[in-house]
């Protein structure tokens, strides 16, 4: 009896009621209100079709991709407590992350998670393509998805430089040289040599697209810092925003597509 009293006292308290506003969700209406009144729960649809939870149909590849993004955000945040993006410290900090930091596997989780995310993005796109889920009204969301694919690859590309070993430096040297082939704004790009006043070239090695990417004429301290900022803040912010749009559009275009 006293137990019952205590229970009533707790559930009648202001603290309890301010958190659980709807009460016991024992009707459909209350279930909907509970879902919509909670920022975390409202990310998931109130109702899903039976086919939407069939693993054989969706492969949950998009869900796996989002999960990996969360894992990478969390492990990346942990790595940021130790890693310093300077020429002097970057490489030794990477070694220390393995040798001197508890759970030295954290960097490997981040690295393998990144590999897995690229793979799961492709699997997700493959599923969406093979089930025809890119067709109207979902064509807009397909384009958002393609941009997210590019951002995923850019995250991998920028993260590739951060260990600051020979592989990283030369891979980014090769990769960023492609930027100098950009039309009109890359120093070797088509049409760039036409942009000149008299004998003076307007686009030079210190103001072309590659320079903007690297913050220098070669992969050096400026490039390391730029790639670090893009990897940890810039691209994740854009990706998170587009993911919100992506999930929103899934809902608005009729939920996860099912078998016809």
């Amino acid at each position, binding site marked *: 009896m006293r137990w019952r009293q205590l229970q009533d006292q707790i559930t009648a308290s202001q603290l309890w009621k301010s958190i659980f506003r709807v009460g016991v969700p024992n009707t459909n209406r209350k279930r909907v209100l509970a879902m919509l009144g909670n920022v975390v729960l409202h990310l998931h649809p109130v109702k899903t079709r039976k086919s939407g939870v069939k693993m054989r149909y969706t492969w949950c590849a998009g869900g796996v991709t989002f999960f990996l993004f969360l894992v990478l955000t969390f492990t990346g945040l942990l790595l940021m407590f130790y890693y310093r993006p300077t020429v002097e410290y970057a490489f030794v900090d990477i070694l220390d992350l393995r040798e001197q930091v508890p759970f030295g596997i954290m960097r490997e989780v981040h690295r393998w998670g990144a590999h897995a995310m690229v793979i799961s993005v492709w699997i997700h796109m493959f599923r969406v393509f093979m089930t025809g889920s890119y067709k109207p009204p979902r064509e807009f969301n397909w384009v958002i998805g393609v941009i997210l694919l590019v951002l995923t690859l850019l995250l991998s590309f920028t993260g590739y430089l951060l260990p600051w070993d020979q592989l990283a430096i*030369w891979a980014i*040297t*090769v990769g960023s*040289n492609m930027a100098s082939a950009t039309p009109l704004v890359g120093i070797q790009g088509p049409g760039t040599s036409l942009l000149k006043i008299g004998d003076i070239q307007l686009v030079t090695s*210190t*103001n072309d697209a590659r*320079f*903007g990417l690297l*913050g*220098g*004429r*070669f992969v*050096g*301290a*400026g490039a390391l810092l730029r790639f670090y900022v893009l990897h940890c803040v810039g691209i994740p912010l854009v990706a998170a925003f587009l993911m919100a749009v992506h999930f929103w559009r899934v809902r608005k275009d009729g939920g996860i597509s099912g078998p016809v």
Partner: protein
Amino acid sequence: MATVQKQAEGTAAAPDLDVDGVTRRSTLKWMTVAWIGFTAATVAGLTATMRFMFPNVLFEPPTRFKAGDPSTYSPGVDERWKEKYGIWIVRSTDAIYALVAVCVHLGCTPNWLAAQNKFKCPCHGSGYYVSGINFEGPAPRPLERAEITLSPDDGQIVVDKATRYLYERGQWSDPKAFIKMA
């Protein structure tokens, strides 16, 4: 014009409403000014942001440097400036020239393999003769040569990486592409 006026008079039911001195005309005028101002501010902001990414001072080694007296170079490939400036000074039988140590395939730094008498890029395997001419791997053209002159002050070699001489354009015979040695 007259027709328009007549129409305006005819539709007296929808006159140019004046509420506290605000008319349709003044609203449109100020909205136009506001949108032009907003667009201009946005463009200016974006331009400033772009410009911000291109610093005014570069803390990189200068492209022009003095490379010592020609007599300090013995025949063959000299690697003393490779680490700092990315330049090989090569002395052949009758000339000294400066090769830029950037692979023309994708921009890696090749190695000088003395035993095999060739430059070899570790990234994708491009190979170049001592002259800089490519003979193996994906390199599409020979290495570039930098401008090389003798300083009129002290007779030292002066290399300027900013000026390049390309074999495929027949520029290697340019007087500033090499120093004649007796």
